[in-house]
């Protein structure tokens, strides 16, 4: 045990000396800050109602203008002013008195045709279009309700609107899984580097004249890598908690991260042992990890979804079983790889 700890300590000391781990944390901080930029930017484009005071002014005209006005009363974020005719409405648009023009006319078939004009190529276009869509959908629902007797199957009544933060789902289903899983990949890459570097420089031979077995060396290197990833994940969860995002099931999440890191480290050790040099090993490792996680994410109970469900507190017995299953698979994979490598020996 002692020799394993010594080797793990040596690995960690190497990382500390190079201060590269700071770079890793810095990269993650950057990603976290950037994702909030992305999410606030994108969500406010898609759901401008989430921004305070995002209200658009619509100039309406046409013989069916009353329906548009009724719909506007139901939709927050859009107010409608009726104009005598389409030219007047368009004029209001041109002199910036309105954000958009809606001309609603009844057709011979009994439909309502709405010609909508939105400003071209400006920052607010997306906001305007999204709000217009809400307005017109409300209008559509009203009209549809009026014609319900003609429908073979009426639409289901809708519940009240609720004020939900659009960032909520993104934070739990994308940001937290991403920040938790990223250190796992880096840990595996570290193991690949650590082993191929020792092979390359011949220092592994020196280590082997010391009274340690190859298995112990592998254990030590793996332990160092496995220790880092859950530690980084914990750091993130604490940061998020400090930022007002409560994360449930921290213990199971860290257990899941440990299991995943062990699995990835097993892959890394195996590839480092068989690949001819560092370049090949890293290439194979990246491809393998991408394939592994891409495939797993697409499956029911993939790691990203498991983290999301744990963090948002929607976990049930199956999620717990899933974490246990990952742990068993990871342990089996590492022990299997270790056994083969110890039997076959490292090197090309």
């Amino acid at each position, binding site marked *: 045990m002692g020799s394993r700890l010594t080797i793990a300590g040596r690995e960690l000391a*190497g990382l500390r000396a190079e201060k590269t*781990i700071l770079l890793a944390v*810095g990269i993650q901080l*950057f*990603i976290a800050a*950037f994702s909030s*930029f992305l999410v*606030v*930017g994108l969500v406010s484009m898609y759901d401008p109602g989430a921004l305070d005071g995002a209200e658009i002014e619509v100039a309406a005209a*046409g*013989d069916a203008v009353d329906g548009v006005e009724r719909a506007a009363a139901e939709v927050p974020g859009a107010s409608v002013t009726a104009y*005598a*005719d*389409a*030219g007047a409405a*368009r004029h209001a*648009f*041109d002199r910036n008195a309105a954000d958009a023009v809606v*001309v*609603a006319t009844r*057709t011979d078939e*009994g*439909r*309502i045709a*709405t010609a*909508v004009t*939105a400003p*071209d*190529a400006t*920052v607010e*276009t*997306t906001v305007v*279009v*999204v709000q217009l869509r809400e307005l017109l959908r409300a209008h*559509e629902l009203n*009209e549809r309700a009026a014609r319900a007797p*003609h*429908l073979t199957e009426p639409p*289901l*009544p*809708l*519940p009240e*609107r609720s004020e*939900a933060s659009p960032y909520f789902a993104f934070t*739990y289903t994308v940001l937290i899984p991403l920040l938790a899983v990223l250190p796992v990949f880096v840990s595996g890459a570290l193991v690949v580097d650590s082993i*191929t570097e020792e092979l390359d420089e011949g220092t592994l031979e020196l280590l082997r004249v010391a009274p340690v077995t190859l298995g112990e060396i592998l254990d030590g290197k793996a332990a160092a890598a496995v220790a880092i990833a859950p530690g980084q994940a914990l750091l993130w969860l604490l940061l998020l908690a400090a930022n007002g995002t409560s994360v449930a099931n921290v213990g199971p999440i860290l257990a899941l991260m440990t299991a995943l890191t062990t699995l990835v480290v097993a892959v890394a050790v195996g590839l480092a042992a068989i*690949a*001819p*040099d560092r*370049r*090949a090993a*890293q290439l*194979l490792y*990246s*491809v393998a990890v991408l394939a592994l996680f*891409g*495939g797993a*994410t697409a*499956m029911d109970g993939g790691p990203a*979804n498991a983290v999301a469900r744990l963090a948002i507190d929607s976990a049930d017995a199956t999620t717990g079983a899933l974490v246990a299953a990952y742990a068993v698979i990871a342990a089996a994979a590492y022990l299997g790889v270790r056994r083969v490598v110890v039997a076959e020996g490292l090197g090309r």
Partner: protein
Amino acid sequence: MIDRLRGGGARARVALRRVLRVARWESSRAAGGVDRRTLAAAVALVAVAGGVVGVGVATGVAGFDVDRDVYRVGVDPASPYADAVAADPSLRAVPAREAALGETTDATVITVVAPSSDGPGDGPIAAARVDEVVVRATDTRKGAAAAASVREAIEAHNERLMRAEPNETAAFPLTVTLRYAERSGGPADGPTLGGSGGESATGGDGATGGESATGGDDATTADGGSAAADGGSDPAGDATDGNSDAGDTAADETRDTAGDTVDSETEDTAGDTAADEDEPGEATEADGPAVPPVGSGVFGADTTGSPSSITPPFPFVSLLLAFAFLVPMNFLIQAYGSSILDERTNRRGEPLLVTPLSPAEIVAGKTLPYAVAAAAATALIALAVGGGALSVVGVLPVAAAFLGATFVGAMFARSFKELTFLTVGVSVLVTTYAFVPAIFTNVTPVALVSPLTLVVFDLQGEAVSAGQTLFSTAPMTLGAGLLFALGLGVYREEDLFSQKPVTRKLLDALAVRLSPVTASEARLSRRRLRALGSVALLTGCAIPFVFVAELLAVAVLFALPVTVSVPVLLVTIAFVEEVAKSAGLYAGFERGVFDRSDAVAVAVGVASGTGFFLAEKATAVVQVVGLTDLFLGRAAFADVAGLSGHAPAALAALLAAPLVLHVVATTVAAAGAVRGRTAYAVALALSTLVHAAYNVGVVSLG
């Protein structure tokens, strides 16, 4: 003269031959490193994973729903709402009798049934009997999000119901034609302003025509509707078509690069209608603009359909495809970084150094195979996703930036472990810098700072002018070149095989580019002026990286409220600029290139500040694309903006103020740099404060 030219040509030929020889050697080595078995294994891995996922997605077992089952919703299995909940992947239905709000569920759907003679039965509830529905949610953010998801799920369910409805008029009573128009000022709007409104109300008929042509399926309505609606394909409607509508349509059509047959028809319509009206001249104007003004036409064709089929102009698919171009780069730089660092471990690169090859030739040769691979991969992806030459032109600078940054990283790294972190850092930085501006492709011309925006334009089928292409690609290409120059400076024996922290390596690389400045020398000797010139040049070369850092800072701080983000941004920008101006000076003092004296500090401080000022002014081209229109952009590029429209004296003062600022702040930092690390840190903080105070002044005055 001719002899010299001939000599130069011969030298260039020799150099080219040498570069190619190194490239051949490198590619054979790379092929040996990544042998066939490795490659086969990688391909097999991808194929197996792709196959499994593909089959899973095809059979509906798998899907990339990251939000699967995140909300638990209690619903009576007999209620028609159970179907709606079951169809939404993010909702997990909990049978109503097991549901306990706040414990096993986040929201509960309560179906209120109209009283009927049958009484409450056990069978399924018919949708027609539902009177209303109440969603009760926990009083948390999660509960609110769950309730909102339930409402969306019901809306989606209704939409599906309506699509199956035989009575289309009742199911989709509204048809919408969305078109984008510029506000007055554009000639296209002329007829609209002049046209009387009476007829234009009937302009809606054009939309109806389009709609009725595509009627049936909702999906086809959304896609196929635009051309029909634009063209007003219903000939009967033409006679009554309003002037304004026809004018608009013509203008829209001329912008449409697709150039379909409807085009001529529409223009005819405009002409005809205009002839009927009393203002034919303006209608001709409407036909006029064959060349789109910058930034318009970006939104592509108009859309027609039911209200829910309206989508905001967001180039999602093009963005996703553009991202595909960046994926192979990440693998490429891993191999490239390994190859460079390989030379540096165990002094493997030494034999190459003693050959007559120059370092530049060695590096060019070693880089060439990877650059070729990047170009080949880019061309292949362009073929696969339907991009043209413009896509390749847009991606190549990004590839160069990836390679340049990796080269510097591999020159500075001490070990493969460190290189891994540096490579990940390079990937993240370059990817975000290339990708994030491209998101705003259709929103603001600033997006062109990323060459990837060109790819998005290309995939959307938009035309891009040569000027835009140049603006978009030149800075990144220049940046990549500067990175290679930085790394090349330390491609020599004493630096290649030594191991130092990355920051010290960076100082070495900077100091290489400086010439000695001594305290005893005559103040204006030619040698000294040349040395100071190299200081100014070094600082000037930092400008592209300063802008990148500032843009990234704008993006990162974007999430904060403006009251916080603008002050933080001003200080950050000041800090970035002060570091850029004084890092080289610190390197000069630390490496003994400059004499440690205050007189030298003042001289190099003035030189560096002036170099920065000149380089910054040279980038005033930024103004051309209206970067300064953005509020945050104005804060970042305040010095560049607002030079026009001032009297010469005021203009001179406006020019002099930043010059004085840069010179003073840098001299302060240089005075600290003379005295060692701690003093430099203190002086840097001081100069940052001075600079930030100035920035605050400029922003509050402007």
